[in-house]
């Protein structure tokens, strides 16, 4: 993951730059850039979650809440109070940071399934607040007519411009996370994941590192929420419900929890599966979706990021290799 990431990042950037043009030429791909915008927005959250889950070894079933906090901060700030969208984005991120600190400090003392339930509970509580505080959030019908973003006087209101904008942010965040994971903090995260006792013995302050990872992922989710509302111009509570939290976890597991590449791959895979590829099955869609997930878990327990090694194993030995 170390050296490759820089070269890989360049290839990814080039591929993304060419993508919308490619999609225009190849028949049937016309709606792909549109879908890729959402995939990019979800990638922001999954990269944060990947740091939290794959590297720091914690779990969260409540990240939809942070997505929602960012989304509603931007929505309410711009649509109701006519504030500057960038200011709202930062306010939302700050709010998420504070909430993540307040929730993270007591919650991350919990372990395993207890942590999963506590974050799940947090997520549901925030959802109910979004749903019930009708005067602020618009209730279940949500808030609509949220203005778009503009950057240096340029309006980001077309699919193309927003595609490039979102994926530039994704690449920047990728670069930031990759560097972070190579730094001292990143090594500490991995030590916490490996063995908390050993990490503690080496003088790593484990609880503060867990909270750091949690706060980072919360802020990224909030950022994603802000970018989401400024594109779709709408937000309602069920966009950030419990199932979205679970979907985010599905994304990182399908992509591979131990790699930032996996986070992006998982987000892209799940976004396309549930928005494009399985549409042809109509009523059977849910069933096929479940089956596809199951098949990936069974055959690629390391997620899509583990695929290259799998292929090497198959090519080398003519039968599935044991990559552990």
């Amino acid at each position, binding site marked *: 993951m170390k050296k490759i990431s820089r070269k890989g990042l360049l290839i990814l950037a080039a591929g993304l730059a060419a993508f919308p043009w490619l999609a225009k030429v190849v028949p049937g791909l016309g*709606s792909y850039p549109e879908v890729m915008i959402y995939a990019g927005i979800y990638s922001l959250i999954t990269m944060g979650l990947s740091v939290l889950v794959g590297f720091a070894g914690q779990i969260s079933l409540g990240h939809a809440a942070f997505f929602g906090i960012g989304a509603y901060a931007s929505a309410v700030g711009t649509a109701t109070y006519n504030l500057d969208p960038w200011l709202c984005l930062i306010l939302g991120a700050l709010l998420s940071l504070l909430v993540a600190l307040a929730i993270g400090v007591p919650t991350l003392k919990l372990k395993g399934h207890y942590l999963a339930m506590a974050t799940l509970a947090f997520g549901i509580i925030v959802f*109910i607040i979004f749903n019930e505080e009708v005067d602020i959030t618009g209730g*279940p*019908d949500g808030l*609509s007519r949220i203005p778009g973003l503009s950057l240096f006087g340029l309006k980001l209101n077309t699919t193309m411009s927003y595609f490039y904008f979102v994926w530039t942010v994704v690449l920047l965040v990728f670069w930031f996370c990759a560097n972070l994971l190579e730094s001292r903090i990143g090594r500490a995260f991995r030590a916490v994941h490996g063995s908390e006792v050993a990490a503690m013995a080496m003088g790593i302050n484990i609880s503060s590192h867990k909270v750091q990872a949690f706060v980072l992922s919360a802020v990224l989710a909030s950022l994603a929420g802000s970018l989401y509302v400024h594109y779709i*111009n709408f937000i309602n509570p069920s966009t950030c419900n419990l199932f979205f939290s679970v979907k985010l976890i599905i994304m990182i597991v399908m992509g591979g929890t131990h790699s930032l590449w996996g986070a992006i791959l998982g987000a892209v895979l799940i976004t396309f599966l549930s928005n494009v590829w399985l549409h042809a099955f*109509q009523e059977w869609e849910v069933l096929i979706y479940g089956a596809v997930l199951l*098949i990936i878990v069974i*055959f690629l327990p390391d997620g899509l990021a583990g695929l290259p090694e799998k292929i090497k194993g198959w090519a080398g030995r003519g039968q599935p290799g044991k990559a552990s």
Partner: protein
Amino acid sequence: MTGRTGRRLWLGCVLTFLALSWVLPSLALAAEPYKLGAVFSVTGNGSMLGDPEKKTVEMMVEKINSSGGINGVPLKVIVYDDESDATKCALAVKKLMTEDKVLAVIGPSLSGLSLAVVPLAEANEIPLISCAASYKIVLDEKTGKPYKWVFKTPQSDSLAVEAIFAHMKKKGIKKIAIMTATDGFGQSGRQELVRIAGLKDSGIEIVADEKYGPKDTDLTAQLTKIKGLNPQAIINWSIGPVQVVALRNAKDLGIKTPFYQSHGFGNRNNIQLAAGAAEGVLVPLGACNIDEILPANHPQKAVTGEYAKMYKAKFNEPLSSFGGHGWDGLMLAVNALKTAGPDRSKIRDALEQTKNFVGQHGVFNMSPADHNGLTPESFSMVVVKGNDWAMAD
């Protein structure tokens, strides 16, 4: 059987599937049809609404094409399921408008999602006929006028509330309790109930305002509290099985005050499921649900009767209010297409000029100031009597 056998089975599934998708390429179409789009919440929280809407639209398209299409041109409706999800809904509507290049879009089923896609219709200049109730869908609050390209078929919630309150006034009911589900349907109903009861001359006082989750399995706590406050009537506003749970719980608690349900109750299946607890329940319903008991001279008698017969024969299930909204949406579009031809802007104008169009939920009279076109008469108060609907007195 070991883990390996299980893995092989799955591998077999994958291979069969890939083979099939290779063998079954899409079939070519003959004539260039008129293309309409539809987005309904066929699955997810709104499936009670979207499922009958989709079935209705597909059934009607089949019927139109088998009787020669529109002015001799076949009709094609591309239906997407938004799974009651905002992202999916926006993607689907955008795809219909920019990729599939449809002439008009019918749906979405839910108010929130309709509000979400209104700007898309305005920006792409494509007529959108929503099947959701909120008045905000067709009212730009900044200008006080309807959005140019957006229409809707269902009666606004305020019409249902007014119908219920008018009936209460007749019966001398003043103190009421309301209970609503915490989803879009329930809360937009609640908003109107509270708003209209708060008007000066309403004569209605809400003494209990209870809520519950749309998937709750027991409402005894809410109803116990209501019973303790002793209202003269109860209004429940939700969709799905929880309406039936409310009735059963109320009966168990020995609550004998008049019980009103929203138009979401308009499905005979609910009466059966309530197992006797629905007797005497009062519901504001459009003509669509009650075709059999309409007087013979009712303007909608023929239209609703024909639809009900077709739907029941084809799907072998009772009719609900929501399929009728789908019918109205599609047939309004078809009606406009007939006169305007395949031109979006002309279709929009034709929709706005729709007059005396006899639909499932009323007689539509659109105008530049009204993109819904229904009047309070489109609801009748109906009572459950002997396990069937009857006109309430």
